[in-house]
């Protein structure tokens, strides 16, 4: 499904940017990204099982990306942008507690791993011209996220506890991703535009690799990661 959307977008994008009325647009974006994280699972080690409980929590990092597309006038004072974008966040940190024997009394270890999401999407934006230089907008994107979970570590809850060896491996999960956003752009010159916007992004899920010690392939995974972002943009329009 995600691949079909992506391909359709590419085929739409090429003829659009070839239209003479289209102004090419190149945008750099960066800002704060606050991700809601939650992971929970039980893993079978044969003679016992452990539970891994990362309660719902948030982690704030940076998200940055670029957009390449075109802008066309749709109606008086209304214009639209469409194009492709690539975004990548600085690593979100997922953490939780290991319940040995799946018994909350044996909360002897804390775990942590990192998630980087790299995303390619088709972005569309509807802008309104206000006082000629202000452009409030609504935006939407659909695409594919490549969510890498890696660098799993355990920290003993006290000096009497000892971590599991070897740890869970790294793993990249492909997931459907979408975003919805709004904001405002401001024309600085005829070719440069500054913007500030809010965006909600669904990154999809992420999961770690397995450890050689476990039975089966079921591993620690995150429920869909939702991100609230505030992004500063600078665009060049041809």
């Amino acid at each position, binding site marked *: 499904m995600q691949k079909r959307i992506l391909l359709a977008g590419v085929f739409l994008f090429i003829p659009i940017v070839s239209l003479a009325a289209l102004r090419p647009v190149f945008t750099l974006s960066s800002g704060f990204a606050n991700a809601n994280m939650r992971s929970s699972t039980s893993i079978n080690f044969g*003679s016992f099982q452990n539970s891994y409980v990362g309660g719902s929590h948030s982690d704030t990092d940076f998200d940055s990306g670029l957009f390449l597309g075109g802008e066309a006038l749709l109606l008086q004072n209304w214009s639209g942008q469409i194009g492709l974008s690539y975004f990548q966040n600085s690593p979100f940190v997922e953490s939780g507690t290991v319940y040995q*024997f799946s018994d909350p009394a044996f*909360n002897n270890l804390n775990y942590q791993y990192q998630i980087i999401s790299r995303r390619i999407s088709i972005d569309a934006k509807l802008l309104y011209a206000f006082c000629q230089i202000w452009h409030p907008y609504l935006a939407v994107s659909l695409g594919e996220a490549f969510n890498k979970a890696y660098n799993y570590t355990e920290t003993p*809850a*006290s000096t*009497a*506890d*000892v971590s599991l060896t070897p740890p869970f491996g790294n793993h990249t999960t492909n997931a459907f991703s979408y975003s919805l956003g709004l904001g405002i752009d401001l024309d600085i010159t005829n070719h440069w535009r500054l913007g500030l916007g809010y965006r909600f992004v669904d990154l999809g899920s992420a999961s770690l690799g397995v450890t050689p010690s476990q039975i089966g392939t079921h591993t620690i995974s995150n429920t869909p990661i939702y991100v609230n972002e505030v992004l500063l943009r600078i665009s060049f329009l041809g």
Partner: protein
Amino acid sequence: MNKYFKTLSGLMLSMISVNSFSDTPIFLITSNTKITPQLVQGQSGTAIYQVINNSNRILNNIVLTHLPAGITQVSNPGPDYCNNLTALNSPGSLCLIELHFDSYVNSSLNGGPIICTAGNLLCSQPYQSDQLLTQVTPGPVAQTCTGNENNFSYELTQPFDSGTIDPGTIYSWGPARNQLFLSPSNPNLTVCPTEDPSNSNAINWMRSRLIAAESFWVSQKLNYCHHHVTDFYTPITSYGSPRSAIGTSDGGYCSNATSLAPANYGQQIRWNYSGTGSETVNTWVNQNRMWYGVDCSDFTSFVYNFSFGIQFNSDTGYQAGQSNVGHAQDFLLPNTQTSGSILGIPTYSTPANDPAGLLLCKDGSVETRSGSPNDYCGGGSNPNPSLNGYFSVFLNDQPPTSDSHFPVNTPSNITPAMLNLLKPGDLLYLAFPPGSGKGDGNNPTSVVTHVITWTGQKVGYGPDDINPTQIAPESICPTNWQPQVGDWVIIDSHYQGPDYRDFTSCFYQNNIWGVRRVIGYMHS
């Protein structure tokens, strides 16, 4: 005054600062006897740990892992030791493990031991304060006596226990002690002790070693228990009774820290416990820490055995010299001896039944029985009731009293100047006047109820002093135990176990039954 206040404040804060951890290690590993913190390359070392299966589950394939090269588990025939960790399979099961640090190891120890189950996937180690931590310094091992005053490596490799539970009393004091021996080679310490009081070098070596041994055991933070040895714990059920119900005069009794007077101190755990790691209320009360320890006279007999292999009776009255046949001399005092009833001296026919050395006279000399006019502290060939020649607050003329524990003390018979005549290692035996309500101890018959060791040290901040923070509280004179710079310091086991304590007149000085000197007057 300011220092005194700070010391007290620190003590009180340490008592009420009790933190807790929420984790539950799968194996609770606590040190019973810590390895010496510093070893010279070539010396061997020993550490004893108690391990409990804390998982509430049956565990299999339990192993000691990640032991540094040269550290091995060694077998010990004593009770409670497990040479095979299958003894830990059942939930709640417990055993002691003895680790030996081989003499060829040249790297320092830091961490562990780690015990794992389920293919090394579930592991625990002691809390940090209990983990192995020993610095190994370059050799060679000193071969002189003075270079080995506090070297107990060889003693620690020897099993303390006979392996036989002593059934001699209600419940049990646990296994009898084994005789321990001084290192015969590398270094040879068997040549260091002396029985010649004029051999001042050897006498000083023995005094230093005895105090070092007591200091070593003080640092292990044992409790006061009716046991003969330091590595035996009172079983949860002892001779059919829960251990918490054992009477205060019976074998296996351990000081109940949750209800000990003085109530205003209110400590539920040993007074110098940190409240964190393995030094928590739970570890103390429920995980056997409070069930390890020795009583006063077992402590003195154990440390003389540990220091030199010297044996004497572990019963307070018999150790003081009263006859161990029946109870004929239970009320006998040094100054009430007569030609028909004299206190004992070592005979070595059954060394473990001997009294400890010889009694001390008021002038600091040791009593003789050689036919001299000075025998019996001036009594001539027989004890002379007209003299008050022994180092004791109890005179020969005892006032009549209906209390069978009759001695009435005369504190003025021991002056501050006389205390300067005492030497490190001297054993001071205490008895209490009728109606005092103090110091009855665990001995239901003899008037001698307590024994303490003279350290020759004072409270202070100098290199040879005992810092006030090391002075333990005690329950007999709760308003007098607080240390003040310049006070004499003794070591004894009562209240919460072997500790340095302030030599108060209230508890100690005013109740001295007699003093016995072992060093220079006994051999192993």
